[in-house]
């Protein structure tokens, strides 16, 4: 069963513990800038916007990769094959959700791989803001509900019907 992360903006406090947990899980270090989930903040407008890969059905990132570095793992989740990625940033430009980024240290693309089914960020969020939803229609609805207000405030339109 394919799954996705959903984040409840009402519950998120912007504490960045999810970033820490993700960086520990993937880089064995405390380094929020290398996290696959990113909490964007605008203190002046009181905005806290968590950004993470939405595990799209038609992944723009994969389409954009000239090297075929973005592939499915054994759980059917797209991840970036570090050895193949050349850090060209095409995927970053292609993803309109900010779900994929360049790791500042190894300069390769990184995206959420759902931690092989045991998401570190979900466990690390003490405010219960992150949950895992199935890719069934209800889950998709939850995903859209969570991201809509954020993207609207940021001036990004969600394309209807894409789901």
């Amino acid at each position: 069963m394919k799954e996705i992360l959903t984040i409840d903006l009402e519950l998120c406090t912007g504490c960045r513990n999810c970033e820490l947990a993700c960086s520990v899980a993937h880089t064995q270090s405390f380094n929020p800038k290398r996290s696959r989930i990113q909490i964007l903040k605008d203190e002046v407008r009181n905005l806290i916007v968590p950004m993470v890969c939405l595990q799209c059905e038609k992944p723009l990132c994969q389409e954009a990769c000239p090297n075929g570095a973005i592939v499915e793992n054994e759980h059917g989740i797209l991840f970036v094959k570090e050895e193949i990625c050349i850090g060209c940033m095409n995927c970053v430009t292609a993803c309109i959700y900010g779900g994929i980024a360049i790791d500042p240290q190894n300069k390769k693309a990184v995206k959420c791989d759902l931690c092989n089914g045991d998401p570190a960020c979900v466990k690390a969020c003490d405010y219960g803001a992150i949950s895992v939803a199935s890719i069934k229609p209800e889950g998709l609805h939850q995903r859209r509900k969570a991201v809509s207000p954020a993207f609207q405030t940021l001036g990004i339109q969600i394309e209807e019907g894409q789901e």
Partner: protein
Amino acid sequence: MTFPYKGYAGHYLEVDLTKGVVQKKEMEKEWARLYLGGSGVSSKILWERTTAETDPLSPDNVVVVGTGPLTGAMFSPSGRMMFAARGPLTGVWAESHVGGFMGPEIKYAGFDFVIMSGRSKKPVYLFLRDGKAELLDASHLWGQETDTTTKMIREDHKDPSIETAVIGPAGENQVLYSGIIVDFYRAAGRAGLGAVLGSKNMKGIAASGSLGLEAYDMEKYLEANAQEMEKLKDPLWKDSLASLRKYGTTDLVAIINEIGRLPTKNHWTGFYEDADDIGPEIIAEKYRIAQEACHGCAVGCKYIIRVKGGNYPTEPIGGPEYETLMAFGSNCMNNDIESIFHMGKRCDLLGLDTISCGKTISFAMELYEKGIWTKEDTDGLDLTWGNVEAQVELVEKIAKREGVGKILSNGVRKAAEQIGGDAWKYAIHVKGLEASGQDPRAHQSIGLTYATNVRGADHLRSISCIEELGYPKIAGDRFSPEKADAILEIMSPKHKGEVVWDMEDLYALVDSAVICKYATMWPPVFYYDTFVNVIPALTGMEEWGNPKYVRLAGQRISHLRRAFNHRLGVTRKDENLPPRLLSEPMPTGPSKGGLPDLDEMLDEYYEFRGCDRDTGYPKEAKLKELQLDFVVDELKPKGLTR
């Protein structure tokens, strides 16, 4: 030899502002081993680099910007950092801590400490990114309020992820209680460190980093971490945590008024009839729009408010803490909550400590009531209790050092000296630091905390909430079941010397780690064993796995900070309380009639601390036990040891 420990960034910076030179150096192994970080390491640095003659606002003074091994290392709550120097308000040891996101960012940028000395010819700020540091021109930022400063720095670098710690106009004008503002609305407010930066033409620090931190044994550390979090999640603390998440510290207005300890009318009494007007419920219901938390924090006491309409509307800002509600509210007999929000916001933007600012204003109001001051002294302002417009006006005048603000910007001790006559009677301070929001006439041990706190009258170096909020099991476990009853007796001086001594060393470690007081102070979950549990796994410093070693480290830090003050002339007679809190019985409220037995508590405290009762000076043997021989070498010839 390279610095061997993990958890630290591994480097520190020497910034000579006079020469405009920044040097990157490897961390000192002994700093970590003996003093952990933060407050402890700062005490070592300031002991070495300042003298009894260092003028706090001269180029000779040294500012230490510090983090600790836990800062940014996913230990909740560890988003903290600190500043230390010889303080301009008090003339003694000054340190101030702050949460938010800047502490971790400094470490991710590659540094554990920054040591600043000298004075720059023109305004500058320090920019840190990924192991590099440079002094940049701050001419365009000078004069700007703190939020604008941060926005401008982010724009200059086209990087919204930059975090900052900056001073506002108050710091530039060297108001003696100006603070350093982090992430828009978090403040290293106390003790005037903003003025020290201002005197150096230093607008602040900005950082962005992607270097990350390692653990010595990640698996073990995460496990230790989880164990500590488990303790915090014990059902016992459910209510405390729920309260902190819903109300932040504002809940204290109600809790503390109930025990008759809420400073009211310039500390005249401890009970405020209109407390509900400035209390937790009205804020939560009417103004609060969101919850926030500092970096990696599971407590989450921060909250955001917005005020629509009225005299003081505001876009979303960080809501005030208990201390701000007390300082501008009850203590000035002001029950207009929106005006308190406004003054709290102005203090953040101007870079002022809300506690000292509010308390200096209540001091002025009392002078006015007593006829010591008239409109001639106040630029025509009517300083009647609760006059909101006058209060608001004073905040601006103080930050600008304009008119009556000039004398008030010096804090109550210096202002009272300048005014003369009976003014001193209304100056509520210890060692020159305006008292924070407690009262020893309703809570004995806080009197001892105020008296012995190295930075002056506030609670954060050793407050005990064991008896304040009533935790019998903790009292029994930490001290002894036989002592528990007397400890829980809030108005009994019995065993309070021991309790405050124990807390002071514990907080010394908290302030060196550097973590937030919440989860240690209230709810009282983390204790010495927490450090024994997490520090070795994170850092690889094996000695920190020994409970005795950890206790001694806490003592070492406490003693070194005390020694810093002894060198500057502090003795038992300075470890005192203002006359009002020492000998005017509490006039009204639930704690009516209360007075602290300070001498009895002090005697016991000195005994536990290893100090001489008559002078408060440390015993030579104690210092040597703590490997503070270099302190003996310097203090003994001056007759400052026993």
